[in-house]
């Protein structure tokens, strides 16, 4: 388990939602955005700060695709499997990325370099099929692009 400690500014922001019904998800957004995932001991602190059972936090975190329990890779590859992308061949792109990276959905390479996940509609169906690489949207991707995409990401470092 990681030893991430909740940084004071997050703990302050989280405080403001304390005991406000339905605000857990807002606090979790803050945590996810800050760390790139929801570290377990931050969840434990959040449970105490907000007086919410850890079980509830895990229910929310595992329900929504947006949250991760594991640290992300240095490069995050999200493949859109929303309706438009799906029809435009996204499953094939996803499969070839899986093969190139040797990962399953939600997996991270052993060296922590790449994290691969499927997501539902990222809101730019006109560009389908879409892959989001480290926050940058790549449009009209073809299955053959998988190698190229990952190689470019490595080069950038």
């Amino acid at each position, binding site marked *: 388990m990681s030893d991430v400690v909740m940084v004071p500014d997050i703990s302050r922001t989280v405080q403001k939602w304390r005991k406000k019904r339905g605000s857990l998800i807002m606090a979790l957004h803050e945590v996810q955005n800050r760390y790139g995932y929801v570290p377990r001991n931050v969840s434990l602190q959040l449970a105490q700060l907000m007086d919410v059972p850890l079980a*509830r*936090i*895990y229910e929310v975190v595992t329900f929504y695709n947006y949250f991760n329990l594991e640290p992300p890779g240095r490069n995050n590859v999200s493949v859109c499997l929303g309706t438009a992308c799906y029809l435009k061949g996204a499953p094939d792109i996803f499969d070839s990325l899986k093969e190139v990276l040797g990962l399953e959905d939600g997996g991270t390479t052993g060296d922590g370099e790449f994290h691969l996940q499927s997501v539902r509609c990222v809101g730019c169906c006109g560009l389908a099929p879409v892959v989001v690489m480290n926050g940058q949207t790549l449009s009209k991707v073809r299955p053959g692009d998988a190698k190229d995409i990952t190689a470019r990401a490595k080069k950038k470092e």
Partner: protein
Amino acid sequence: MTNPNGYTTKSNIVAGGNGRPSVTATINGQQVKVPEGTTILDAARLLHVEIPTLCKHADLDPTAACGLCIVKAKGSSKMLRACCTPVEKGMEITTHDAEIVEVRRTVVELILSKHPNDCLTCGRNQNCELQTIASDFGIRQAVMPSIAKDFELDVSTAALTLDPSKCISCGRCVHVCQDIQNVHALCFLGRGYETQIAPAGVSLGESPCVKCGQCSAHCPTGAIFEFDETWRTWDFLKDPELFTVVQIAPSVRVAIGEAFGLQPGTNLTGQLYAALRRLGFDAIFDTNFGADVTILEEGSEFIQRFMHSRGELPLITSCCPAWVDFMEKFHGDMIGHFSTCKSPHEIVGVLAKTYYAEKTGLDPARIRCVSIMPCTAKKWEIGRHESMYASGYQDVDVSLTTRELARMIKQAGIAFLDLEEEECDPILGDYTGAGTIFGVTGGVMEAALRTAADLITGETLEQLEYTGVRGLEGVKEAEVEIAGRTVRVAVAHGLGHVESVLHRVREAKENGEEPPYHFVEVMACPGGCVGGGGQPYGVTNDVRMARARGLYSDDERRKLRKSHENPHVKRLYDGFLKEPLGRKAHELLHTKYQARLTYAR
């Protein structure tokens, strides 16, 4: 009169509604008048129509998870779920026709496609709700391709077995754990097909789980059941070197009959003694005796605190291990209020390996003690603290649930219902009426009051029954006059009801006020041990009440109904322990508590 569906209409059915306005509708052509808000499922039951369901349980709010209870309502294009749809004025409902049966069959087939075909080796074989429904619908082959997954068993509590592969995601266990018990050990992880019911990122043993087993009592399938230790018990029984003693908890005697087709509440004490003797146990004891001893210790503790201001008030009972675990994890600040007295079966255990061993000349190293309990948490309790080894050995070696004992009796080929009643063995078996009501919520309080009142006044009081602490109300409060002083008591059962009681105690403490109560009893399971997590399946409030009545009538039939009048208890103190709360009593009969983390990691 016959309606188009072929149902014969009898008289109109009207249900009482506590002043709520009522609505009239028809179900299968038969008119029914029910209080507003009554679900179609409940209204149908009034007409003796059973709509199948796998997720709805009488203890729980409906969740509409399983989809089996669908019915038709005239004018509605879609089928409605009977468990969560209230009857509306003028509704014309059909609960069963060829199409509905077909849809339900498909629902069952879908559930089965995600369920392993392990019935013969499953912990719920022959008493599984899914198996029964599959049988009713005559499912003879898998129509859908199987998407069942293999999961590892979680036996980390050594009290419960979690087998996620059998889970049908009905959610009963989660709702019991979260809403009724306020423990929040189990939760829904993931969603859709991937949904798994598990603790948050750890094993059950590392979670806040208090082992109450209410999840196992409410699970419709074999996804959660007791950690089986019958084989360990058989091992003791087959070893000629060992002297194996056994004891039965109060509530086991009024529930085990259900596993043999009898009505809840049937008292089978004598038959149980006989069956245990036939199983090969060398001495048959009764936990009720231990309960009488508990009352002498705990009652004396109460008198110390109440009359002589030695120790914090309220005194809080500690005989329920799931409650002890809950308190240690969630309410560590209450440790000073807890009775240090051990639970009745631990008392019988330690006395078997000390007092009984001494009297009979047996080497305690050869003695094995088995407890038959309504409870899964007792399996955890027997090793929870070093004081559970006060005899120099583990005081109770194995704790079996009522369900496990029922299986052993069947394995041994004992015609249980034909047995003549027998007596238990001296000297740890004879009990008073006060001991037997330990098995029902309010019972420990009532037993303690009977003894405390006599000891405080120094008289033999006529009053025996304290009805204010009886019944299934979640929190019961009562005031009792003893020697011109008012004793304020509270009784809570179902861990979800504890919070409000403790809150009042804390508030008074913080404000420097008189404590709101002097004595508090808590039982983790709704109804107390009669509704324990290790009892026969199918518990509802009616069943809990029937079992409770069984214990109260056992109490009424006893010549002696106050613990301190038990001659065997008197002899135990005269010849061995000397006095309640004395040095020896403390060594053997008392324990310690420590605040624990809710999550081990």
